[in-house]
């Protein structure tokens, strides 16, 4: 089943009267349960694309379909409802609510989606635990490092158990240990059937995906399905052996 589809999607910004085409005709479909990575140089339109997919930016032309319904024509409030129920969004620059604790930031979307306070708390405890953030639960976002805020943003996006997770550079500020936590969690929600679309420069993240879509200049220049190859059982010694 196709969860998400775009038809000739275009976004042109106006920059002091000069048109800046950020996304230039993207046709792309994501199947239920798929894990798709979007890569491409800085400025190639990755954030613009996922923002439109999450209803956080308006298209200039083209269509967006979510679960078989056309959504690019929806009002802002209708999008808000959709996000509350179906979509988790991780912003490249976090966007945490600054005057709420980490715990409240994560629980809020779960409550808005209709979970009971107890369920919301349990979900929050689970997510913060998976991301090694349990100790920071009652801190304010401003007291966190960039990498911690980024992980809170991921926990928040997953709080309501969304069918579709859209994540913009979820490991952009993380060291390799924290990246591993994030990858583990993404792998887990993916295995539970969640559809994941993640914008990333990090090849480790991309290597977890079923498909890697590459953007350049606002257009898709490559769409590679990463079929699993069967590896012979091996050890790290193979890193030495696999050459030549």
């Amino acid at each position, binding site marked *: 089943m196709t969860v998400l589809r775009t038809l000739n999607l275009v976004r042109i910004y106006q920059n002091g009267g000069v048109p800046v085409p950020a996304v230039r005709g993207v046709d792309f479909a994501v199947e239920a349960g798929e894990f798709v990575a979007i890569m491409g140089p800085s400025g190639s339109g990755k954030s613009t694309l996922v923002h439109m997919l999450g209803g956080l930016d308006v298209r200039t032309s083209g269509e967006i379909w979510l679960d078989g319904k056309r959504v690019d024509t929806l009002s802002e409030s209708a999008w808000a409802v959709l996000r509350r129920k179906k979509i988790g969004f991780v912003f490249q620059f976090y966007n945490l609510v600054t005057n709420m604790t980490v715990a409240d930031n994560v629980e809020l979307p779960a409550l808005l989606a209709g979970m009971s306070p107890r369920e919301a708390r349990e979900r929050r405890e689970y997510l913060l635990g998976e991301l090694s953030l349990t100790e920071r639960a009652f801190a304010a976002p401003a007291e966190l490092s960039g990498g911690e805020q980024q992980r809170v943003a991921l926990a928040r996006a997953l709080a309501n158990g969304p069918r579709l997770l859209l994540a913009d550079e979820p490991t952009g500020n993380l060291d390799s240990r924290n990246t591993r936590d994030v990858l583990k969690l993404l792998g887990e929600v993916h295995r539970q059937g969640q559809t994941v679309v993640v914008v990333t420069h990090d090849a480790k993240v991309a290597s977890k995906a079923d498909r890697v879509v590459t953007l350049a200049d606002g257009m898709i220049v490559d769409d590679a399905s990463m079929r699993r190859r069967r590896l012979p059982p091996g050890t790290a010694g193979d890193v*030495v052996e696999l050459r030549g």
Partner: protein
Amino acid sequence: MHVMHSANVDVNRQFGNGGGRVRLPLLALLAKEPAHGYELKQALEQTFGSAYPSPNIGQIYVTLGRLEKDGLVRAVDVEQSNRPNKKVYYLTADGREALETWVDEPTEGPRVRDEFFMKLVLAPLTGIADRMALINRQRRHYLSLMRDLTELAERTDPGDRVALLLIEGATLHLQADLDWLERCQEDLVT
């Protein structure tokens, strides 16, 4: 051809399976204490964990023989009751010097992936493939290597720190290769 090459240039240069390259690790182990061949094999396995494919004992004896001929180690026969004598090796002054030289000299970094770059630069002349197609193919290749490394890391015992560091190194090199590919795409494909 280039599979995981960049990450392993050094490893291969020093430990390569071609025979002669177990030399320096053996000298290093003997700098700690004299040992016989089998003890050296075990010590190598213990030190490197799965990061180093364990050499066979024959290879170790051949190498020790060569080191002895070159005057870098010497062997003494130690008598054992009920069993043939065993040869215990120890480091000579020359051996220590060779080891110090190796430790002190800077180690060559990974080579630039010049062959792919040649293809990329020459592509418009050959007309066989355009640059975007070459870059896309190469990116897919790197990504599938990255997937192999990720899976390897997941299969590796978390306590095997040396092995995990080796994999991490290969991963970082591969990330650099991918970033560079992106630069090629920006600058050469218009």
